[in-house]
């Protein structure tokens, strides 16, 4: 069964460093998403991406964040200068042919900023 994959599963970084979180969505999906879950809290939407551009982003997704689909398979989230409060689980999700389709989540990347 097709699934969304994410690498790395865990990342530890120093405050101020750049991190890139990688995702491989399900191959025939057209809509891609990043969500964040701070430990013990709810899952929060960060950004959606369609047709090689951002279609929507939340107030959390400030200038420190960027997304890219560099090669038609990977979908990346970059945090330019990490802060302590960026420590969270980051989930990538992909959806099929329309925005109303189910979004399937990857296993997450647990980011710890020290």
């Amino acid at each position, binding site marked *: 069964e097709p699934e969304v994959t994410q690498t790395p599963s865990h990342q530890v970084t120093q405050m101020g460093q750049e991190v890139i979180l990688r995702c491989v969505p399900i191959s025939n999906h057209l809509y891609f998403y990043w969500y964040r879950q701070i430990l013990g809290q*709810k*899952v*929060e*939407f960060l950004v959606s991406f369609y047709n090689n551009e951002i279609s929507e982003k939340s107030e959390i997704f400030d200038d420190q964040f960027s997304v890219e689909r560099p090669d038609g398979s990977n979908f990346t989230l970059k945090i330019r200068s990490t802060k302590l409060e960026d420590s969270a689980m980051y989930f990538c999700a992909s959806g099929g042919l329309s925005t*109303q389709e*189910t*979004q399937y989540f990857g296993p997450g990347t647990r980011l710890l900023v020290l």
Partner: protein
Amino acid sequence: AQKVTQAQTEISVVEKEDVTLDCVYETRDTTYYLFWYKQPPSGELVFLIRRNSFDEQNEISGRYSWNFQKSTSSFNFTITASQVVDSAVYFCALLPDNFNKFYFGSGTKLNVKP
């Protein structure tokens, strides 16, 4: 406003008991989709069910059943004869038709004791 409320923060039951997890949602969209996800201790989000707003039929899948009532804006989830492996955090989520993102509830942590 789009909002999902899971009022039960944590529930503990003994194995083989039935348990119901509550979910109440708010949306102004006439078309929307409701989901339940399971998050085991390993952290991934596992898709359980999707319901369309125009389909109020209840659904049963093995020990799981879902009760969707538009009149009370609720989408409750019942586990019959709970098992230890059901221990997880369960999230209810709303996908409004006019918004390309999920709104998650804060989750209910279910502890099933042997």
